[in-house]
Each structure stands twice: as structure tokens, then as C-alpha cells.
């Protein structure tokens, strides 16, 4: 195919600075590479809503026939969606289900449900009694984190003996999470579980707990199914549970959804990708050391 008659497709990433999302982008790129007549435009908004919009405008200038939007802040991209709608370009959202504008189809996880799963695990593991620490992502991108935590709390609030003794803000990364967890460990002698809004922070919490030699007392629950976290679960560490939120699967599904739409299929508006709970007994099944994320 020559450059001019190739099918141009856009993959607008809100950020490629976080492994979850670069994994998503890689999955889409790998899928697209299979088709020699597809030219994929990949952009990185570096966590800036206005840049995501600029990227999409640039894609429209470039004449793309379909766009996948990955990540993003839920409510922040109405104008971008409007612009795409105006240009009659179909949009597939992966991971985040954007609010406020119109899109063609969405493929992603149910973060609230993941939270519920985690909450159930914790309640059972604690036998309805214990002290819990929350490691929240924040300050940025709070909506997803809230869904996850609220999901968990919706279960846990039924148990009056399960108390949230501290809330830390790990900014979604390992480094901040270690620091916050260290401080929390210093302040609280009696902690039984840590619930993290993502696995990166869970890994940080794990290091802090290990350094404090309290891994026997405290277990960790995360979200994402990041491969390092799954490895930790397999290895029998105190990182015991995570909710699968596989960007690789979501990314591939999203690409295929767009292909189907471009081929003229009527696609379902929303597809929730299953987020199974990963624990030691089933972790090996989800572990792929070569995956990006």
C-alpha cells in the first residue's frame, strides 16, 4: 500500500509515562502492525487535557478514519469528542469511559466492581475485624481511584470492626508510596491490611513493610495486575491480591472494536472487560513475564 491509500488510524494516549498506558498503546500498535495497509498515529498528551485535544486536532488534520482514546481524565475531553464527532470520525475509548461527550464504543474495566472484589477479599481475609490502611493515588486522576476505593468501602462498611486507620497519598507511584507507607507504619503499630488504588503503590507499600519487618502482620491488596505484582503474589509474599485490569487485553480488544466499526459493524456501545481477582491460587495463569505491564 502506498502512503496515500493507507488507512490512517489515531491512537491518542493521555499519557505514555505510566506503564499501564504504555502497555495499552503497545498492544494497539502490535495489533495494527499486523495490517500492512494501516498507518497508526500514536500521540502522547503527557497528562495534559489540552494537549490531548491538540493531538486529536492534529490527527483530524492528518485525515485519520478512526481514533482510539486511551486513559484521560473522565470528564475532560468533551471538546475533543465533539471535534471528532463533527469530523464524523468514530471513536473507541479504551480503559476510561469518558463522560460528557459522544463516543462510538467503549472497552474497559469496571473499577467500582474491582473495588468490590477487593473489599470482599479483605473482609474475608480479616474475618471481619482489623485495621486497614488506604493508599490512594491522588492528587491527580482521582475519579478512578475513588471508584476503586468506594467499591471496596461499599463492602467493608458492613463490617463495623474493620477500621480505616490511615489514608496515604502515593501519587500512583512506587517511590511516593514507600515514603507514605513508611510514615504510616511509624504512626500506627497495629495494621492488618493495605488497600492500594494501584499495584505500583502496592509494590511500594510492600517494600516499606518489608523494611519494617512487618510483612507477617500486614497483607496488601492492589489493582491492575501489573506483572511485578502478580509475581509477588505467585512468590507468596504479603502482596496477596489484585484485581486484574489488563491493559494488554483491553488495548487489543479496543483495536479490534475499531476495526469492526470501520468495517461497518454495529458495535456494542459498552464492553466491560472482566477483571478477575488474582490471588495465589490462580496467579500463575495471569503471569506473563514478557508483557509490557
Amino acid at each position, binding site marked *: 500500500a502506498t502512503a496515500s491509500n493507507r488507512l490512517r488510524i489515531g491512537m491518542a*494516549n493521555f499519557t*505514555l509515562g505510566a506503564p499501564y498506558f504504555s502497555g495499552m498503546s503497545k498492544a494497539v500498535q502490535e495489533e495494527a502492525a499486523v495490517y500492512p495497509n494501516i*498507518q*497508526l*498515529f*500514536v*500521540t*502522547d498528551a*503527557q*497528562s*495534559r*487535557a*489540552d*494537549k490531548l*485535544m*491538540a*493531538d486529536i*486536532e*492534529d*490527527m483530524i*488534520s*492528518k*485525515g485519520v478514519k478512526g481514533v482510539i482514546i486511551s486513559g484521560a*481524565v*473522565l*470528564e*475532560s*475531553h*468533551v*471538546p475533543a469528542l*465533539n471535534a471528532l464527532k463533527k469530523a464524523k470520525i468514530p471513536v473507541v475509548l479504551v480503559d476510561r469511559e469518558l463522560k*460528557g461527550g459522544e463516543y462510538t464504543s467503549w472497552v474497559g474495566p469496571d473499577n467500582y466492581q474491582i473495588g468490590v472484589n477487593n473489599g470482599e477479599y479483605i473482609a474475608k481475609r480479616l474475618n471481619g475485624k482489623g485495621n486497614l490502611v488506604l493508599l490512594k493515588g*491522588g*492528587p*491527580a*486522576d*482521582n*475519579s478512578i481511584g*475513588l471508584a476503586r476505593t468506594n467499591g471496596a468501602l461499599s463492602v467493608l462498611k458492613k463490617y463495623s470492626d474493620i477500621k480505616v486507620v490511615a489514608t496515604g497519598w502515593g501519587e500512583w507511584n512506587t517511590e511516593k508510596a514507600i515514603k507514605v507507607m513508611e510514615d504510616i507504619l511509624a504512626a500506627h503499630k497495629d495494621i492488618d491490611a493495605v488497600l492500594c488504588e494501584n499495584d505500583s503503590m502496592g509494590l511500594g507499600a510492600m517494600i516499606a513493610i518489608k523494611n519494617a519487618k512487618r510483612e507477617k502482620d500486614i497483607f496488601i491488596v492492589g489493582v491492575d495486575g501489573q506483572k511485578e505484582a502478580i509475581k509477588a503474589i505467585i512468590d507468596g509474599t504479603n502482596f496477596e491480591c489484585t484485581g486484574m485490569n489488563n491493559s494488554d487485553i483491553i488495548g487489543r480488544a479496543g483495536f479490534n472494536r475499531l476495526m469492526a466499526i470501520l468495517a461497518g459493524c454495529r458495535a456494542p456501545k459498552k464492553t466491560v472487560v472482566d477483571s478477575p481477582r488474582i490471588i495465589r491460587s490462580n496467579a500463575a495463569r495471569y503471569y506473563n513475564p514478557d508483557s509490557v505491564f
Partner: protein
Amino acid sequence: MNTKTTTIASENQGIPFGQQCLEVWNRYSMYIIFGIIVVISALISDAFFTQNNLINVLKQVSVNGIISMGMLLVIIIGGIDLSVGSVLALTGALVAGLQLKLPLYQAVSLALIAGALPGLISGFFITKTKMAPFIMTLAMMTIARGMGFIYSNGTPIQVSNERFTELGGGTLGIIPYPVLIMLGVALIIHFIVKRTTFGREVIAVGNNEEAARLAGIPVNRIKLLTYTICAALSALAGIVLTSRLYIAEPMAGSGFELDAIAACVIGGASFNGGIGNVPGTLIGVVTLGLINNIMNLLNIQSYPQQVIKGLIIIAAIVARREEKR
């Protein structure tokens, strides 16, 4: 005395051609470099030189353009303002929150005033306690960001008022309003710098603060005003951005200070203060936007994009080769 004057004059005429070229280059280099980038862009991408794309670029840079005008004043006066991005976010959150309860124009005015406050406060400490502007505005950056988060509770605030979103999304003819606002602000700042006593006072203070004080210029008042204007323009940018995105995000604007500073410096401003101009800064703003735009058009991957962007900034400034002091 006379002999001396004539000597200098004749020397001027006697400047070798090469040197004359160099002087032209020194004065216009940023425009020339800009021209080169435009021409190259047009050559390597068909999509570039379309009306649509060019207007897109202008629209994309409008927010940075507005901020850069305030930053320019601050840099001319010999300071720096790192808080512009978080002031933008704070104001965005405020206007989005206020327009739910108040009439639009009241919401906008209140947000603008509130957005100018951080600048007033920074300016106050910078003048009264002789704090380095870098550290004061760094602290203000953290504070304003935190306040934005507190106000918005960490979640984006949506805007539905159509009259408001028209501001960011509408056009006059083919020119989007944000572009008009940017150009309007640029014109005003240009006029201020060139033709008003305030602008000249800013330049004098930036050139030699002590001398300005000795010349009876109310240095502190001028500085205070400059930081306030800078914050007010960041606030304006926050309002434009919010109306463009229909939403105010608490994390909006992080890193914007660096873009604004880069634009001013590419445009010829100096951190030593006293030097800087509006047309150059505008060129700097658009150059930065072009770099992003053309790399997207050429489908360059995000990671190399960052490397290339850095290299182009270096090249643009090296090429300018400031006259040695």
C-alpha cells in the same frame, strides 16, 4: 569632541559586510529560524500548510500564549513565576465552580480577581522580604495547586453554560476566540512595554533595580503589579482553557510554566532581566506549538518527540547566538 563623533560615524559606515549580516542575524534570527521551521514543515508534510491545521496550531498555543505574555513581564523585570500553571488550574476550578451558582460575568470576574491574588501575594513577599522569585513562586505553585485541589475536591468540575464554552470553542470568522484573546493580550502587553511609563519602568527595574530606585521609580509597586498581571493573565488563560475543555481539572497546567519560560527565552528575553519583547515571545510560543504539531503530523513517536523537542529548543537558542557581553 567633534573629531570623536565623526570617527565613530565613519566607523559605522565602514563595518564590513559580514559584520552587517551578523547584526541583521542577531536582530532577526528568531524570525529567520521560525521561517525555516515553517518552510521545512510545509515541505515534509502536506497536512501542514492547510488553513485548518494552521488555525489549529494557533488555537493550541493560545493558552501558552496568554501565559507567556505575563511571564514575559516578569522575566523582563528580572524575576520568574513558576506558579502560573497552578494559578491557571485554581482559576479554572473557581470559574467552573462559580458559574454553577453565579451569573457568568460575575463568575468570570471573581475568578480573575481570585487568580490575580497569588501574584499579588508572591509580589508582596518578593518585594518585602527580598525572597528569590524562584523560591517564592515555587512555594506559591504548591499552595495554589493545593487550593485548587481543595476547592475541587480533587475531581474535575464540569461546565455546561453554553455561553461560557462558546468563549473557548467559538470563532469570529475563521479565527477562534482563544486566538483572538491571545493576540489581544499580546497587543496590549506590547503597547504597555513600548509606550507606557509602566512598561518602561518594568524595563528600567529589570535593567538595574538599584538605579531604578535611585531614579525615583517605585520599584516595589512596579514589581507587585507585574506579578499580579502575570497571575491575572494565568487566570485568564485558566478561564480560556476551562471554556475550551468544558471542564476544570485540578491538575491542569502542570508544566505550563516551563513552556511559557521557554517561549520568552526563545523570543529573546534574558534571565538577567531588562530584555524581552512581545513579537519575539509570540514567535517563541508558536515555534513550540509548531514543533509539537509537525511531529504529530509526521507521526513521530512520543518518546523521540521529547528528545527532538529538546534538541530543537537548544538549536533555536544556539542559532540565535546572543551577542557576547
